[in-house]
């Protein structure tokens, strides 16, 4: 009932300005990006104090994994953005398909990440090897944890889209906002771990 109200309200307000999803989620987005900025700053400062070690260790990373992962997450973000549009237009079948595409690209990211970790560990680069790989494994795994939570969040989105009885546009948008956060955090992590010299 409230869902219906929400979605009609949303439709009427469309030309006007609106916050996508629950405004509450934005508190999380902003707080979490602040937190990651903290992690990144600590990483950059550590990096400068021990430049050669970091450069030397960084050479063991494979940029191709980073590129692939970034594109996979950008694709998933694109899919969830389309999903939000479709659901707003009432095209729930399309929305559902896009939601599953999002999860699919997320899984592709997950698999590629695990392969990359395995490869690094085979090379002898583990969490305790050196300072660079401490940061590498910390940042990638805390980000992966966000991705795993993202799967739960996408489960909520699919659950909402699945049945005509639910379909809260607000919840779908909230889930999308979370998923984009996972995406843009990875964009930063990618640049900082793989490209920064």
């Amino acid at each position, binding site marked *: 009932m409230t869902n219906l109200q929400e979605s009609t309200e949303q439709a009427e307000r469309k030309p006007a300005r609106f916050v996508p999803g629950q405004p509450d989620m934005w508190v999380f987005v*902003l707080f979490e990006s*602040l937190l990651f*900025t903290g992690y990144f700053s600590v990483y950059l*400062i550590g990096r400068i104090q021990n430049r050669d070690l970091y450069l030397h260790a960084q*050479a063991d990373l494979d*940029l191709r994994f980073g590129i692939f992962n970034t594109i996979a997450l950008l694709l998933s973000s694109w899919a969830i953005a389309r999903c939000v549009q479709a659901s707003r237009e009432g*095209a729930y079948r399309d929305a559902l398909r896009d939601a599953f595409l999002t999860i699919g690209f997320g899984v592709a990211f997950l698999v590629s990440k695990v392969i990359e970790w395995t490869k690094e560990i085979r090379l002898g680069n583990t969490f305790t090897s050196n300072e660079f790989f401490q940061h590498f494994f910390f940042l990638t795994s805390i980000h992966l944890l966000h991705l795993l939570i993202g799967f739960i969040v996408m489960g909520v989105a699919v659950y909402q889209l699945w049945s005509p009885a639910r379909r809260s546009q607000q919840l779908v948008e909230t889930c999308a906002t979370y998923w984009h956060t996972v995406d843009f955090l990875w964009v930063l992590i*990618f640049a900082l771990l793989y490209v920064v010299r």
Partner: protein
Amino acid sequence: MTGTFNKRLAIVWLVLTLMTLAYIWLDHSADDDGVYRASTVVTVAAILIALVKVRIIFREFMEVRHAPALLRRLTDAWVALMAVCLLGSYFIGSALAG
């Protein structure tokens, strides 16, 4: 309506992906026959490109474009804050390391 939206999202995705691919060139330009070299230009460029991507994700994918002024300003302020923190820690760290 849906068509224009989807076209816009596709273009956004394309731009973001091209920016990602730009990193390959950036990455190679920094190296000296496979040996990694420290480079302020590459570091600053990598951080700035990433932040521009973040802002595009905020504006387009997360629909801040249509959001009230408060959220638009807040997200822009946040991108600026991240830039200050990241570049600041890089340069202050460099200055301290000498």
